[in-house]
């Protein structure tokens, strides 16, 4: 606005008919309608991001230091951005908005992997989860930015740059806790052991990802495993941790992609959805 003109003085935003709520996807994706398969895939990725964002938000005012309130809050905000774009695109296939998908789906309709819905635990558990998921997401989005689906490619290219900062944050805290005090080291070791059983689900292929990967739309999860292992092994070596042994088969078959969830998702959704469901159609 020029110096004399107040943007919100002469014309209030309410008087201007806004075209629509913020659309996450851009011109390439503006109005782009996802195929049924691509929508399902975008929903998986969007649900992962949104559930994790909700978890990280719980740390605000509870983190070990003020800077971490801010850091985890900021990381959560980036993830909400990714979730909005992905769910906006996912909803395009069925005429649902990002809000419809976030607030009006019940547990069996959520497609996130189990690791994202595991409780925050102590700070070490949250960092262990961040180490795993940010490493996975950075590899995933790096690959997905070459997707033949222009909307998914755009969202992934944008998200990759942000997740790079998230991984850096997780790696630094992993090392700090590993070499900090006896207590922080003990807790970090426990956290890594508790987190590892949830890894395999992230890298499992199924009919959907195989179909989409053949078409160049999606990344086949199993193809990310080697690079993930390599990066994480390097971090654990620097932390002087023994890598957790024996792929923990008892949770290897996490079934989040098909809508089966652990007992932790329900309460998380209840809190996230309560306001929207008490006041349907309300907007800020």
């Amino acid at each position, binding site marked *: *606005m*020029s110096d004399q*003109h107040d*943007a*919100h003085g*002469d*014309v209030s*935003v309410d008087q*201007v008919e*806004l*075209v629509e709520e*913020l*659309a*996450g*996807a*851009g*011109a*390439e*994706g*503006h109005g782009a309608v996802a195929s049924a398969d691509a929508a399902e895939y975008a929903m998986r990725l969007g649900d992962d991001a949104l559930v994790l964002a909700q978890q990280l938000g719980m740390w605000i005012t509870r983190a070990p230091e003020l*800077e971490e309130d*801010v*850091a985890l*809050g*900021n*990381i959560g*905000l*980036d*993830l*909400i*951005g*990714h979730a*909005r*774009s992905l769910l906006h695109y996912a909803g395009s296939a069925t005429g649902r908005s990002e809000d419809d998908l976030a607030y009006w789906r019940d547990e069996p309709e959520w497609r996130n992997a189990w690791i994202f819905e595991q409780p925050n635990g102590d700070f070490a558990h949250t960092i262990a989860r961040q180490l795993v998921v940010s490493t996975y997401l950075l590899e995933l989005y790096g690959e997905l930015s070459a997707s033949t689906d*222009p909307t998914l*490619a*755009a*969202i992934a*290219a*944008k*998200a990759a*740059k*942000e997740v*790079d*900062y998230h991984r*850096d*944050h997780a790696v630094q805290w992993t090392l700090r806790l590993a070499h900090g005090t006896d207590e922080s080291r003990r807790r970090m070791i426990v956290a890594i052991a508790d987190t590892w059983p949830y890894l395999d689900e992230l890298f499992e292929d199924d009919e959907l990802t195989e179909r989409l990967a053949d078409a160049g739309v999606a990344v086949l999860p199993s193809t990310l495993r080697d690079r993930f292992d390599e990066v994480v092994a390097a971090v654990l070596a620097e932390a002087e941790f023994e890598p957790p042994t024996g792929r923990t088969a008892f949770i290897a078959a996490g079934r989040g992609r098909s809508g089966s969830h652990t007992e932790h998702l329900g309460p998380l959704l209840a809190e996230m959805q309560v306001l929207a469901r008490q006041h349907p159609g309300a907007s800020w």
Partner: protein
Amino acid sequence: MARRAWEVAATVTDPEIPVLTIEDLGVLRSVEVDGGGAVRVQLTPTYSGCPALDAMRDDVLVALTHAGYDDVRVDLVLAPAWTTDWMSDAGKEKLRRYGIQAPTGRAAAKQGPVRLQLAVKCPRCDSLNTRELARFGSTSCKALYECRDCLEPFDYFKVL
């Protein structure tokens, strides 16, 4: 036609960094006016979750409506992804005068096996003797630093 509409849109500022216009930031990507006078603006978010974007989008709509354009649509584009390399020199200078240090170096320095962390100058006294206090600062796009010479804290706009 489009030039005038661009100039109107370019007056919109970032509500979180009011000294910077969306043109300075590189957030204003394109402005097109068709034969019928319909305006199509493209903005790109700095960070995916940037809450200022909604406000900037509304402000662009308000500014253009106020300037007499009846048919305005503001779209968001994600590709190519925004980078701090698009921030104008004028914008970086305004940012420094405002007390926020502008990104040092190009985004590419952040990628690859060798990460380059360039020194960050204090926007107040120009000292290079500074220290990062927190990688994540008051907003997604900023980190918190302190100057060890003038002892003042300051925000640094992170390279992205």
